[in-house]
Every structure is written in C-alpha cells, then in structure tokens.
C-alpha cells in the first residue's frame, strides 16, 4: 500500500525530478522491476531524461554506434 509520500516520490521520478536509485531507497529498497510495476499501477509514464545539454555526447554515441552513417 503506497503512502501519499510514496506516490509523490513516484510522480517526482516520472517527471525526472528524482533518480531511480533515490526512488528505490525511498520506497524501502525495491527493485527497478517494482518501480515499473508501481508506475503502471499509478498510470505514470517512465521518465524521459532531457537531452538539452547532452547533445554532443549523444551525437558522439550515435557516431560510435553507426560510424558509416554519420559524418
């Protein structure tokens, strides 16, 4: 049974305002699988990490993954 505080933590994680590790600790050491299940039960989406500020490293990763297709 989730407390209101647990639900708020889940919402914060879904908004990318809390890391998965912090969330798992706040929920009593649950696994990431539990996090997925709880998100589903609360109808919350998985967090989408913002790409702003990381464009260069994502582009570099892209070039390494597919070197022939990226200039």
């Amino acid at each position, binding site marked *: 049974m989730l407390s209101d505080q647990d639900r708020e933590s889940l919402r914060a994680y879904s908004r*990318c305002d809390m*890391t*998965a*590790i*912090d969330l*798992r*600790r706040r929920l009593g*050491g649950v*696994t*990431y*699988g*539990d996090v*997925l*299940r*709880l*998100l*589903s*039960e609360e109808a*919350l*989406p*998985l*967090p*989408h*990490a913002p*790409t702003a500020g*990381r464009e260069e*490293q*994502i582009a*570099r*990763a*892209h070039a*390494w*993954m*597919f070197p022939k*297709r990226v200039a």
Partner: protein
Amino acid sequence: MSRDLKLFVVDTGPLISLAVAESLDYLLLVDADVVIPDAVLHEATRDAARLGAQDIIDWVKAHRTRIEIAATKAYEQFDLARLAAPQLHEPDLGERAAVEVIEEPDRLGGNERGLLLCEETAVLRRVVVRDRTRIVEISTLDFLRILESEQRIQSAEQVFVLAASAGRLISRVEKLRAQDDETRDAIRGLVRRRSGGDA
C-alpha cells in the same frame, strides 16, 4: 569478444525495461560487445518473480559470444556473505560493481571505446571517467532513439510504453515466481573471470 565498441550496461533499468518490452535483442543491433557487471545481472534477476528476470537470464545464455558478465570483487564478497546471511540485501551493490568495472585500468585497450548505458545518470556521479574522448554515457531512451533514427527499430517510445505498462503483465509475473535459486546458480555459471576465462 573483440569489437572496438563496448556497451556497458551499468544498472538494472535498461535490462528490465527491455526485457519487459521483449526487446533485449535491441542491445545486439549495434556492432558492440555487451558487458554487464555480475552484480547488475544479480540485481536484475535476484527475485525471479521480478519483471523480466527469466527472460534476461535466457537472453544472456543465448548470446554468450556477445555478452560478457564481468566479475567484480563487490559481488564476490556479497555472494560469500550470503552464505551466512541468505537474505542479505545491499541496495547499492549493482552500482558499486558497475563503478568497479568501468574503472578497471585495462578495461579499454587500443582503439576501444565504451558506451555506458544506464536508466539515468546517477550511477555516473561515482565514476571517474578518465578519458571522456573514449567513454560516453547515454540513457536507454537515448540508445533507442539512435536505433530508431537509423531505422533499426520502429519506435523508441513504444518500448517505454510497453515497459511502463509492465504492472498489467500479471501472467508473466506469476509464471516466474519462486525461481530464485535457479537464477542465482545461473549467474554463477555465466560470470566471466577476466584472468581465467569462463567460470
């Protein structure tokens, strides 16, 4: 395992999300060797009732030539401690093992480069990345979006939608209950000791 690009899966999120979405093979769509620290595999599978656990074990077994389960002292010590305390649980075990693997001085040689794949970047705060020209960290969604832009997969978002709906997959959860001992033994069989080859 001799590819120049190494894909380090440094926390359980990518494995579980992809397993739940039946998309673990997406990790093999890149010409890279996949490296998973033993403790990360343990955390992802420690309770086989957890989502995706058996799928992850089966997937690793099926692709042993592409996937290295990297042995760590953190997991070795934890496994020994469990002999005296079978219910022992260390919440940050996977994180510590990932840091250990990434910081191995000879982990990347020659022209090799590393991609660190994690659900979010918290684990990387504890990592000393000595050579940022050779190591880049990305999230699962970054990885999937790159695959999508290369038309290797249809939709990155769809994987996340499937993962986020995991709680409704009751039949899969029930099917996997009570197999903890089997997964523990499986991990032991999959760990590769760097100095001595396959365990």
